Each structure stands twice: as C-alpha cells, then as structure tokens.
C-alpha cells in the first residue's frame, strides 16, 4: 500500500474582491485554482521531486500534504486513511508521521527560542515522550545533522549561519522520526558552497532513517541529484511524471522540454537549445478548462484547450505525460 496518496486533489482560493464590487456590480467571485486535480503516489523510502516555476502549485501541494491546508476537493490518504477525516488524536499522530522543512533559513526559526527549544518543540507539543527522553533525542538528532549539542544547543538563531539554521530546521523535523519529510525549497536561500552539504545530508539521513521525501523545488539541477522520481507541475496541473533521469533526459511534455532547455549549465562549453515556448506565465485565476499550457505551447491544438489528461499514478515507475499529443510529437 502506498504511504501517501493524492487523488484528484484540488485547492482553490477566492480572490478577495470588494463588497461593493460583488453586491452592486454583481462581479462574480474569482477563483485562484492553485492546484487542479493532482494525483500522486509516494511509497516508503521514495524520494519524489516536484518541480515547476512560481505559481505552479507546488508549495500549496506541500501545505496540503503536511496538513496545514485542506484540499478544496479530492482526497489525501495516508496509509490508506483520509487525513481530512482525522480526529484530533489522529491529527496529532499524523503530525508525528509527516514533517516539513522550509525555504527561508532566516525565518524558519523563532528568534526567541534557543536551538534546543526549537528542536524539542514538536515532541513537546505532541507530548511524544517524557522530557528527559526528549532531551536525549534532541542531542542525538543535533549530532546527526552535524551540529554538536555542546556548542549549538544554547544558541539563538541570530548566532547561527544560514546553513546552520537550515540544519536546525531539519533536526526539528526529523526529531519526531517521521515517515515522510516534505522539503519546500530548502536550499534556494543558502550560499552555493553550503547547498551541496545540506543536500548530501538529506540524502544520507533519508537512507539511514528510512523516511520518504517529497522535495519541491524550481531548481531542476538539484532535483536531478536527489530525486528518484520527478513530477513537473504547471499552473496547478501535473504535466509529467517518471524516473528523474528519464524525465530530464527524455522529456515528453512540451513544457518540460522547454523548462529543461532553459536551465543554465555551469560549463561554458555546453550548448543548449532555445526553449520552445510562447509568451509569459499567467496566474491561475479562472483558468480555462483543459491543459493550462495550451496558450504557450507551440504544439497545441483544439483538444488541448478542452480536456486535460490526468496522470494515472498507479502505473508505478512509468514515465507518463499529460500531453495527449505525446505519440505524435517526437522529441
């Protein structure tokens, strides 16, 4: 059984318009359809990458998986149970099973908490263990992320560097021994020379501590190094999924192809193709039915704007794309 399953999950937000606009001018309520009918399956020990640009819905998806936001429609199942039907005890259990790390190392820690307070907060809030056991587990996890407790436990965030803060964030998520870790762009605000260290650390911990990881990023170079499977999202829709190497080296969806060819390569000798894409990205406000990439796609046709192929996640590791012209297009 899959550890986590998303079935047709959508999340809409209302665009706040004025009372007068609505009552007097009769303007309809506009909806931001941030995530639309997304399917996903995560098994034990999987590392799944979700890639896409801003506005694609990857962060919203993260928040829904970690229970911080409720889906507008669809189901999120953890070990077969629907998480929106949890009572408060089950909710607490869920938080100890699924944890999250965040993007901004400078904002992720409470400036008033020492490192030990931040890391111990989860177990204390969920009353997982007695206090002295919590303290020793905190010591353990701090060691595991490379921060010696003797040196770091009493420090305040302003006494830590960006990389150290991010490690504290990882420690405070992993201290609860979750089965799944959601990582929302944890590296993008770190210095280049520090990123590799945190990435390597995450990979190592995932292997040692047996948790699956959903890693969300706009940086395909990083995802290429950490994810086993990769899902590409555009404006709330999942457009392609498959083994990372496959998706990156043989993209099937026109958006994926454009995205990959746009990634700069740290080598002056390499050449890459000009991304084949039209126009600018829009916001997913009241989008038309069908594939949201239609207007920017150089290969789109009538059907594209009417219907959208949803990805069937039950096909295991297969490389799938939501482009209905996939057989016709030969990349």
């Amino acid at each position, binding site marked *: 059984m899959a550890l986590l399953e998303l079935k047709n999950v959508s999340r809409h937000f209302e665009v706040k318009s004025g009372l007068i606009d609505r009552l007097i001018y009769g303007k309809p309520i506009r909806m931001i359809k941030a995530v639309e009918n997304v399917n996903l399956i995560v098994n034990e020990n999987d590392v799944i990458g979700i890639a896409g640009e801003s506005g694609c819905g990857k962060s919203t998806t993260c928040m829904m998986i970690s229970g*911080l936001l409720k889906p507008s429609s669809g189901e999120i199942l953890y070990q077969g149970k629907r998480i929106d039907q949890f009572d408060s005890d089950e909710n607490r259990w869920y938080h100890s099973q699924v944890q*999250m790390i965040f993007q901004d190392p400078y904002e992720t820690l409470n*400036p*008033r908490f020492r490192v030990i307070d931040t890391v111990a907060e989860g177990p204390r*809030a969920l009353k997982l263990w007695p206090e002295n056991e919590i303290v020793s587990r905190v*010591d353990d996890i701090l060691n595991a992320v490379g921060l010696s407790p003797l040196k770091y436990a009493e420090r305040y965030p302003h006494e830590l560097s960006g990389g150290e803060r991010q490690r504290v964030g990882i420690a405070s998520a992993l201290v609860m021994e979750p089965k799944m870790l959601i990582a929302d762009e944890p590296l993008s605000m770190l210095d280049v020379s520090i990123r590799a260290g945190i990435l390597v650390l995450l990979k190592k911990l995932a292997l040692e501590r047996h948790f699956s990881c959903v890693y969300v990023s706009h940086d395909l170079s990083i995802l290429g190094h950490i994810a086993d499977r990769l899902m590409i999202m555009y404006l709330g829709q999942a457009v392609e999924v498959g083994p990372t190497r496959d998706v990156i080296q043989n993209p099937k969806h026109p958006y994926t192809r454009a995205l990959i060819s746009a990634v700069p390569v740290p080598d002056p000798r390499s050449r890459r193709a000009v991304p084949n894409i039209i126009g600018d990205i829009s916001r997913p406000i009241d989008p038309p039915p069908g594939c949201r990439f239609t207007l920017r796609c150089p290969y789109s046709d009538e059907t594209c704007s009417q219907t959208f192929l949803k990805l069937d996640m039950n096909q295991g590791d297969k490389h799938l794309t939501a482009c209905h012209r996939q057989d016709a297009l030969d990349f």
Partner: protein
Amino acid sequence: MSDLAHKTWYQIFFRNISEHYQIIHGNLLGRIGFWVIAFFLFVAILAPWLAPHEPWEMQYDSEGNFASLQMPSWEFPAGTTHLGYDLLSQLILATRTTLIIGAVSGFISILIGANIGLISGYYGGKLDEVLMRFTDILYGMPFLPFVIVLIALFGRKLEFVILAIVLIIWRTSARVIRAQTIAIKQRQFIVAARARGCSDLRIIYRHILPNVLPLLLLYASFNIAWSIITEASASFLGFGDGETISWGGMLYELWLSGKTRVAWWWFASPSLCIVLLVTSLVFVSRAYEEVANPRLRKR
C-alpha cells in the same frame, strides 16, 4: 552526556531578568528613569515608616504656633496645608496609593489588552471583528465622564477607580498587539510550528507571545504612566478614592481649600512627583521601544 548544555528554567528566568536590566540600562534615559522609579518604589514600600508625621494631624511648629500654610522649611520640608497638615507625610503616603493604583491598573489593563490583541490577531475572522468593534466602542467613550459616572454610581472606592482606569486604558495596547500578532503569525517560524503539530493556544502563548514581549513591555510602562495620570485627573476632580490620599487627591484638597494661588508649595510637590514618575516611566518604555523597533537602535 550533554546535560551540561541544558540549563534549568530558573537559570533562563534569571538570564531574562539580566537581559531586561541590560535593555533598560543600555539607554541613558532608561537608566535615569529606572532609578527614579526605584526611588519612588522605595518610598512607597517604606511609606508608613518614612512619613515624619501623621498626614491628617494638625501640626504645630517649633514655636508652638499652629502651622498653617507654612512654606517649606526644615521642620516641614514640603510645607503645610491650611489646616496644618504636613505635606511631606501626605506626599509619602500618597506615593504608595499612586503607585499601587498605577501598577495594578497598568498590569491588569495590559493583561487584558495583550490577551485580546493576541487572540483577536491570531484567530481573525468573526472573533476578531467582534472584539475589535467592542474595542472601537470603548475608543469612543470619553474617559473622564465615564469615570465620573462610574464613581458617582458606585461610590468613591479604590476598586472602582482601578476598574474605571483599566476599562479605558486596555484598548490601545489591544490594537497594537493585535497588529503585531497579525504580522508575526504569517512568518515562517509560526507556519513551521503548526507543521510540528502545535495547537493554536500553544502557538499564541509559547511562540508568538515572546516575540510580542518587547512591545508588550513598552505598553505596560505606558499603561502604568497613563493610569497614574488618569488617577491624578480623576482624584483632582474629586472622583478619586475617598479613603486614602493620592497625589491627585492632594491637589483636590488644595483646590477645595481655595488657596491655590497662595500655597505654591502645596501645588508644586504633588505635581512634580506626578511629572517625575510619569516621565521616568516613559523613559523606561523608550528603552523597550528600541528593542521592539530595532530601527531606532543606533547603527
């Protein structure tokens, strides 16, 4: 193993105390304010032992004359009233009353204001609307008439004076703390706390409150200062507590006696005390403001 690394709660408490001490003393004005307040506190605590005479006892000077309306002298350093009462003793005992009313009103009002601000700001929605409209209504209430009505209805008792002051003063701190709560609750570390599984109440009081603390302390000092002025105003108008004397009450007595133009010393000492204490409180809150608003700190 590393038990050495984990301090106990009282060590943290004392560390916080010293942190506050640093904040106040880091600032010249804060330091001055602190010592003046400390002085008044000292006087207030030891009042009954410091007062040289009974406050409402007719005094006779060294020559045996009735000591009425005497200017400040060695015998009566603050002078006397028209009835021969020693003003210094009154002043000293009034310090106690004023400080008690000020501190109690200040603390209760900040307690109410902070909690309403935190809860309103964190939960938002209907709760926020209701609480804020309630606060708005109180904003519309003019203070002095309200106190007057309350006292007139229920009598000149200490509790009602405190109640009246508290009911009016909590409103500003509520608004301000609500605003800061709203700003803080969107920050990533609060989202992270929710992701860790913290309940709403835990987030409000364990995560947000420490971050609102500098602002809170700032308003605590302000509230105490306002309470003192408010009490002085009410007492001056005759609506203070009937049983004890306060600085404002002393001014009320002065006014009643009709000797305002003559007995400048009677007017000077209570007024000076009010000004000194309130200014010191403002100085101390200024020191906290630098923490609450780091931009004010010198570069």
